[in-house]
């Protein structure tokens, strides 16, 4: 039976993309308690800069394998420039404000970034298929897949493992855990929370941009990819639990496989299934699979 295998493979493929998209969002929320609506725009920004760098590189005629470096460089560049800028200028002034205000600020950022990308790259779609086609294809269970897609799964896995290891294993990582658990105590422990926030947000931005850059060879890079991306990212993060990387991985798998199943079995409902799962989770277990409850003290 090839359909279940196809669903599984497609699902895992899709999950890889979703994880890369959602990991940064959940990390930023975990540390800073801010849900960044503009996260999808950072993803799109990575797609654009990655694409631009690859196209620029390819036109120089250098050895083709290095184009992957260009792709990665684009993402890292985008994230490490925009990240600190946004955190310092826009987020720092509003840390003490209500959640509603923070949501509105990140929504404004989304609006601004959308136009910035339009101004820089225009509205026509970009296709950078070289990185995708270069590696060739392989047939599994009667379905043709590109090696690039399997590479994506590997990269997503590796990223997940690396980020979790970095958080558990390094001093900075442990500070992140401390700040996530209790911000006030962390300040008294001497942790420079401000600098940590900049770091965390930049890491989240780079992760988002990375997701976008890696996905770029698979899609048409055009205005509007951020709009759907953000709802999907929200869905994954809600299902997994806000602030949990393991949750983001599991959430990505659930959303990915469910959507793949829908595409094969009930194509009409493909779009709706993801949102329905999100609604269901929010209704029955709002904190998600790995999230934590918070209660107010009086």
């Amino acid at each position, binding site marked *: 039976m090839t359909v279940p295998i196809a669903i599984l493979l497609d699902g895992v493929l899709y999950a890889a993309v979703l994880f890369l998209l959602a990991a940064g969002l959940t990390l930023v929320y975990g540390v800073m308690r801010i849900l960044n609506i503009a996260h999808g725009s950072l993803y799109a920004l990575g797609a654009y800069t990655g694409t631009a760098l690859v196209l620029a590189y390819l036109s120089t005629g250098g050895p083709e394998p290095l184009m992957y470096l260009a792709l990665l460089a684009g993402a890292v560049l985008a994230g490490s420039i925009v990240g600190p800028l946004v955190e310092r200028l826009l987020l720092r002034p509003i840390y003490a404000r*209500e959640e509603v205000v923070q949501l509105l600020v990140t929504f404004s950022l989304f*609006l601004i970034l959308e136009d910035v990308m339009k101004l820089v790259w225009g509205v026509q779609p970009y296709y950078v298929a070289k990185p995708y086609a270069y590696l060739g294809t392989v047939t599994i269970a009667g379905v043709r897949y590109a090696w690039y897609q399997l590479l994506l799964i590997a990269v997503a896995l590796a990223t997940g493992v690396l980020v979790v290891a970095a958080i558990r294993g390094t001093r900075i990582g442990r500070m992140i855990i401390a700040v996530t658990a209790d911000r006030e105590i962390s300040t008294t422990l001497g942790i420079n929370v401000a600098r940590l926030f900049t770091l965390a947000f930049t890491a989240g931005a780079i992760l988002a941009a990375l997701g976008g850059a890696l996905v770029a060879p698979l899609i048409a890079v055009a205005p509007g990819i951020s709009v759907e991306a953000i709802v999907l990212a929200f869905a994954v993060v809600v299902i997994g639990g806000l602030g949990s990387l393991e949750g983001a991985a599991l959430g990505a798998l659930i959303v990915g496989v469910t959507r793949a199943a829908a595409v094969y079995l009930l194509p009409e409902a493909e779009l709706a299934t993801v949102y329905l799962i999100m609604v269901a989770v929010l209704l029955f277990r709002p904190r998600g699979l790995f999230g934590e409850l918070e209660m107010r003290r009086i």
Partner: protein
Amino acid sequence: MSGREGALALVAAAALVAVPLLLPGWVAFLLTLALAKSVVVLAIALLLRAGLVSFGHGMFFAAGAYTVGLLMKRVGVHEAVLLTAAGIVVAAAAAALVGLFIARYRGIFFAMLNMAISMVVYSVLLKLYWLTGGTDGIGIRTPVILGMTPDRESLRLAIYYFTLALTLPAFYVVQRFWNSALGFVLRAVRDNEVRVEYMGTSVYRSIYAAYVLSGGLAGLGGVLTGFSVGHIVPEQAYWTTSGEFVFVAVLGGPASVPGPLVGSIAFEFLKSYASKYAAFTWQMTLGAAMLVIILFMPGGLWTIYGWLARGGRRWAWSSKPSA
């Protein structure tokens, strides 16, 4: 409402009545659209009062619009008053259903749950193309207003006055709501939910009531927008449409009654100007404007009136720090 505010309201109403007779047709059209959408903005402002932001009110907006579209296209109802009533009822009923569980949520979860449900509605509207026309949506023709079919010349005017006739009472209703016990309780809920419960008032019920009213208003906005534009599409339920309403609410200033109207009018005119001259910087300008308002002028554009009227004292709805 104080004496001066009452006088201002009358002047504004009079101005709105006179406008289409004095200014060119395109102004009247934009104003019709602005009025129609201002009702949805009112709906958002209502919830903002309780400290809740919904990124999903497009679903009630679409509910009102699609009720009109489907009744006109499939059932053959053409009377505007009937269609409006139906649109409001359907939207309010939807809000009554969704509100049952959504009234338990706050902050980000409230925003996201609204968003998610509206996206489900969007995908349903998109996929059920045999009923809703899918991406093409539903085109509607002139409704019959109180038994009279307006001829081509007076069509714009007729729709304008019909819209005005429904918008002004909507604003009045919300004005009374703002000053009622429930209106104040919602502000109290935002400030200190625990204290509200400790006074014996159900926070859940207060939010539920506000949500249903909010849904009905959004539905009315959807109906009026449908009449005005003549075309109903699934995008009305998309989260960015909802986001636009939130933006206008913040722009105009959600703590006041005139705010949504002022914001909506400013928005529609700016939008039509921008789409002609600055298509690629329109959203950026919106975003930057919203940032400026949030950071420096939390009361929205209406703060300017506040500054003039109160001699500079700021009217802040969002200056309180988080708990």
